[in-house]
Structure formats: C-alpha cells, structure tokens
C-alpha cells in the first residue's frame, strides 16, 4: 500500500460552458464513472469498516486509483481548482439503513466560509445504485450563493426547485462546499453508503480548462436556467463574479449598476460596463 500523494495534476475536462454551469448550479453529477468491480470492493470494505470515518480506505491503492484519482472526477477538480490540487485528507461515510423515513435537515457543511472565489470542492461517491427510494442527497441548485448557517436552517422543509441526486452505482457528485443540501428519506430496503471527501486549491485561479473559442464572456447569460430566490438579477451578479474569479481576473469584475453588464439583455455591441480587462483573454 502507498500513501496518497498530497497533490495531483491531470488534464482538465470541463469547457467554459460547463464551468459556467457549475458556477450557476453549484453542483454536477458524474454518473457511473467508477467501474462495477471497484464499487463492489468499496461496499465490501465499508461492510468491514463501519466507522463513520473509514480512513483506511484512503490507503487502498485500488480506491485511490479508481475513485480519488478517477480520471473523470479529477478532470473536473483540475478544471475548477487548477493544477496541483490537494487530495482528500479525510473520508466520511454517510451510511443509511433503508427504509429511512425521516428527512434530514437542510444544512451547509460545517466549516463553510463565505469568501470570494472557489478554493475547495465537496465530493460524494455512491458505490451502490441510489434511486430516490434509497434516500439520495437533496440539493438546492444555486444555493451556494446564499449566505446561511446550519442553526438557522433547521426549520426549513420542502423547497421549490430542490432536486434529489438519484444516481446509478459508481456515480460521483461534486458541489460547492457551501451548497444547501439534506439527506432525503428512502422507502427502499438495504444499505446506502455515501462517501464524502474534498479537494483543495493550491494555485491561483486561471482559465486553463478547455477553452471554447466562441465563448462570449460579454454576452453570455449568467442566470439562465437558475431559479431566482433573491433580489432580481442577483444571480447574474453572483455567477459572473465567481466565473470571472475562476479565470484569474477577479480583481477586474465590476457591476456599474442598473442595466450594465453582467445583467442579461439583448444588446448591440459590447455591453456597457463590461470590463476592458476581460476583453482579451
């Protein structure tokens, strides 16, 4: 057995459009990216080590290679956190014995900090099929832009627009650490394992993911496809600010008020307020 390396690098896999979509939704799902034999091996391991922090699995070569360094998963991490990102240092298992009738409470992860940018990513790995009946995590798209604290979310119930991350075995679900989520109840029968871990940024942000030559930073719609919960156009401001930060030009982000960029509109020519520093990138 070998210790996992502290940092890792690989080719990025997300395009401009996909990075923007992550900035909007705050999460993405990679379905069935881990091979079946590895999923079964993970399940067997977790049946032996039922601790809620099965740390030993981080010392298993087969797990490091196929899950932690899964090429599709780390391609996303590389796209969002840059080169030489830090590998997980802690492993948690959110095991449920279904049927599980009660809903978990809405929460943000402990340790969430609200700062400009994106410096770490939350990951869940599902080794078994996890349909709605097996209580997949429920997540509120776009909520990574809302400030809250666990203690002030305990009275929340059903929320319009929330989605359940039901997925087949071998799926890896990645999210902004501050996204609102909860454990859903499940009427099925059996054990549901869900491993939780995270990666960290070690290098300054830069636009070194897969560049789309035609991607138009000035005219793209920063809030299309996101349900609005806050002030009108707030989503555009939050998403544009995050996306520009990820390109490494966060210092140049600005909104001049009113209808200026990055608010969505049908415009002729360069939108008023579009930072000149973002023109040649």
């Amino acid at each position, binding site marked *: 057995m070998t210790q996992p390396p502290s940092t890792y690098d690989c080719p990025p896999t997300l395009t401009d459009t996909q990075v923007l979509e992550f900035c909007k939704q705050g999460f993405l799902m990679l379905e069935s990216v881990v091979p079946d034999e590895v999923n079964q091996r993970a399940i067997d391991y977790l049946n032996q080590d039922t601790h809620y922090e099965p740390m030993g699995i981080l010392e298993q070569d087969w797990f490091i290679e196929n899950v932690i360094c899964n090429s599709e998963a780390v391609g996303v991490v590389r796209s969002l956190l840059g080169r030489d990102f830090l590998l997980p240092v802690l492993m948690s298992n959110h095991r449920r014995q279904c049927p599980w009738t009660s809903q978990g409470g809405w929460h943000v992860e402990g340790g969430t900090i609200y700062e400009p940018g994106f410096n770490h990513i939350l990951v869940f790995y599902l080794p078994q099929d996890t349909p709605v009946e097996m209580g997949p995590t429920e997540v509120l798209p776009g909520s990574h832009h809302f400030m809250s604290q666990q203690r002030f979310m305990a*009275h929340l119930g*059903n*929320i319009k627009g929330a989605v359940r991350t039901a997925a087949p075995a071998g799926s890896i679900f990645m999210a902004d650490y501050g996204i609102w989520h909860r454990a859903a109840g499940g009427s099925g029968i059996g054990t549901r394992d869900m491993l939780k871990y995270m990666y960290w940024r070690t290098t300054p942000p830069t636009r070194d993911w897969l560049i789309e030559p035609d991607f138009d930073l000035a005219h793209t719609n920063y809030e299309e496809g996101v349900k609005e919960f806050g002030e009108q156009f707030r989503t555009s401001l939050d998403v544009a600010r995050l996306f520009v930060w990820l390109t490494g030009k966060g210092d140049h982000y600005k909104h001049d008020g009113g209808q200026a960029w990055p608010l969505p509109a049908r415009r002729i020519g360069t939108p008023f307020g579009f930072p000149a520093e973002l023109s040649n990138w």
Partner: protein
Amino acid sequence: MKQQIGERLEACVQKLNDGRLTAQDLSSVLDGIDDARQELLYLQAHSTAVTSEALGMLLVVDGQVDDGPSDPEQWPYRSVLEAMRDGWRVISFPNMALLALDDRTYGLGCEFVLERWR
C-alpha cells in the same frame, strides 16, 4: 376549537330563548380550551407580499413536524394569503433588517410564520 365554542354558544342561545339556560351551560362553553395545541406554518415567499409565490414550506401539526408534499404543486398553500384564508394567523413577518444587506442573498426568501390552534 373556535368552531366548537361557536357551536356551544349557539346551543346556549337556543336554551336562553327556551328559558332553559343554566350557569353550568355557560361554564361548559370554554371546556377544553386549555387543551388546544398551537400549530405552525412556515412559508418562505419570494417577496414580502402575502400574495407572493411560496418557495418553501414546513408545518408543525398535531405535535408533529411535516415537510408537506415533496411536489410543490401539491402544497396546501401557494401563498401566505391562501393560508390566511384557511384560518392561519400571521405571527411573524419577514425580517426587514436584511434590507440593510444588499451584497448577497441571505437565507431563503421572505419568511412568514403563521399559527392556528386546534
């Protein structure tokens, strides 16, 4: 409980008109009123208007916490006003102190808390 008291009062009026009303009849009008339980309805709305679209809900009914239907189309109320029309009383309005903070979105929508007694 409100409906039960109303029915008892109507019966008392009838007895009064018939000349049969007793002190015990009047005393019994409020029987059980101390047994009534508070029920709560949390509704997070898009704005402070009572007609605004409900974005989130949670009920506390019969001493049990109930998220309500997972499908928003099946929620019992689409707005605060609909809940008020069904007998719920608003006991807390959205916290206007958040108006002072316009740099980001805080919490989920504009939260109303409503109650009724059963």
